[in-house]
């Protein structure tokens, strides 16, 4: 199949339909509006259900209902909307329901602005809703990855019976790039636990309540065990010119594209600089950071400093971790990152 020029949000929606997504429940919010529009135009004629919910709260609970029936289902929103979904996400994680949740991040806090941001990293990878749970969080950095990682997200959700989040941002959602859709078949997973009507079998229950501490503890240990198995097998990252690097940049999503350009500019000036780009934000790829212990690190992100905390944990004191950020919908430029790189490598402490 030839490449087509598409917006990131549309490529994500098309990939979801190709992955077998058969229900979409959402609510309007910028900058993700192309996702529900694409679904409304295309999903019904391709055998699925599109419904605009009365709120983000309702949308995520509709996802709970459909996921509980074993159907591949997705919802999409942007930062303030994700805050409203957090209650439902906690329930979905607790009930171990597979589904895909998209956050096309804008800048906050509060209503903030509609320009790109990365301030929802903590919310996505550390919980966000109440209680202990983990989402698999995938961070695309191109329109092609908006499609590829969304397709993969549905397979991962079914494989692990766990919600998967696509953590994109407004720039990735709005920009157009050529994209080629995978021809592969979605993973087929049996769902004997689904509530589809108890015909010829014992009733199934989708539930998160367990008021007996001994029993709930067993259930939570089982969840924790699942999370460690996910961490062992689903960690994803990309390295760029890291082998001989003295300074390792770390960035995801839009920031990673900027960082990669800065790496090329620095290399052109003879500076040994590379980039570690986490693709799975949870589970976090600590391995490449551990391999480069003893070197300098520079985290570039569009938040007050969230990814940088996970990088510090992975570096674990075995190297200096520097930080460069922009806020409020401002995107860092490669040139300003280059200035920071030179400051670190040529100008002393640099922090």
């Amino acid at each position, binding site marked *: 199949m030839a490449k087509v020029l598409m917006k990131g949000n549309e490529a994500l929606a098309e990939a979801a339909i190709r992955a077998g997504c058969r229900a979409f429940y959402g609510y309007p919010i910028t900058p993700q509006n192309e996702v529900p529009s694409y679904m409304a135009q295309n999903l019904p004629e391709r055998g699925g259900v599109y419904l605009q919910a009365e709120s983000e709260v309702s949308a995520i609970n509709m996802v*709970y209902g459909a996921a*509980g029936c074993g159907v591949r289902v997705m919802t999409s929103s942007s930062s303030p909307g994700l805050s409203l979904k957090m209650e439902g996400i906690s329930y979905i994680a607790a009930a171990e329901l597979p589904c895909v949740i998209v956050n096309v991040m804008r800048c906050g806090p509060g209503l903030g602005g509609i320009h790109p941001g990365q301030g929802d990293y903590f919310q996505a990878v550390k919980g966000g809703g109440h209680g202990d749970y983990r989402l698999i969080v995938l961070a695309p950095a191109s329109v092609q990855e908006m499609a590829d990682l969304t397709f993969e997200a549905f397979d991962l959700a079914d494989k692990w019976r766990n919600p998967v989040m696509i953590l994109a941002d407004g720039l990735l959602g709005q920009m157009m790039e050529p994209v080629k859709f995978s021809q592969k078949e979605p993973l087929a997973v049996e769902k004997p636990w689904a*509530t589809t*009507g108890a015909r010829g079998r014992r009733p199934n229950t989708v539930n998160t309540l367990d008021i007996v501490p001994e029993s709930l503890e067993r259930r939570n240990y089982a969840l924790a065990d699942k999370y460690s198995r996910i961490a062992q097998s689903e960690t994803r990252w990309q390295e760029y010119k890291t082998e001989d690097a003295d300074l390792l940049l770390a960035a995801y999503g839009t920031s990673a594209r900027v960082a990669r350009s800065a790496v090329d500019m620095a290399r052109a000036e003879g500076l040994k600089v590379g980039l570690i780009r986490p693709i799975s934000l949870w589970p976090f790829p600590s391995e490449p950071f551990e391999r480069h212990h003893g070197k300098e690190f520079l985290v570039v992100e569009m938040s007050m400093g969230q990814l940088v905390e996970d990088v510090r944990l992975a570096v674990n004191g075995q190297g200096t971790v520097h930080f460069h950020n922009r806020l409020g919908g401002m995107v860092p430029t490669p040139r300003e990152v280059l200035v920071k790189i030179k400051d670190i490598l040529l100008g002393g402490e640099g922090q």
Partner: protein
Amino acid sequence: MKQVFQRPESLTDVQMHYCPGCTHGIIHRLVAEAIDDLGVRESAIGVASVGCSVFAYDYFNCDMQQAAHGRAPAVATGIKRVLPDRIVFTYQGDGDLASIGMAEIVHAAARGENITVVFINNAIYGMTSGQMAPTTLLGQKTTTTPQGRSIEANGYPIRVSELLATLDGAAYIERVSTHDPKHVRQAGRAIKKAFQTQLEGRGFALVEVLSTCSVNWGMTPQEALDWMRDNMVPYYPLGVYKDSARKEEAAHD
């Protein structure tokens, strides 16, 4: 020997946790009888809510989902839209449906969502030990209205059936009571009709069932039934508020 009474197939034999004098058990039975009578147990998917009936998934012998507080109509919508030939119902109390879940129930009704809602109105939060509900009567004492509910501080109780009946998507709305056997039988007929409405694809159906909470009302079971008849029924008049299959809407007592 002829068997004249037995547990409906749609109820499990799990012992219910409800307090003495509570009418949840009776209403569970009415729901189960309706499902049995219509022969839809194997295609039924119920949604339990948060409140005293949170364990309903243990009592109904059909597929069940347990929803977050107030969200049962959204969960039911998510289910019904992907499995339109299944029979989907929610079982919700007044705090769940008329307070925290008001948006979900109004929009499910407005969409004409083809689901059945059993709405239990006992004028109080039972599970959390007796706080004011949106349906608590004026003057009624609760742990959070120790002097009695006042208009100045708390405003007015919400009449859910009347409210939802104004929506075009609502196909069938009836309020019933459980204060004596005659009214329990009428409640059973209404609940069955609410499932029948869904089977016929006519849209949103809700039965509001007036119910007791003798423990949190501070009454004996009999006093609670009498109090419900004398205080709740006058404020929450019984009858059919909407029936799209019938041109004229008749009230009953």
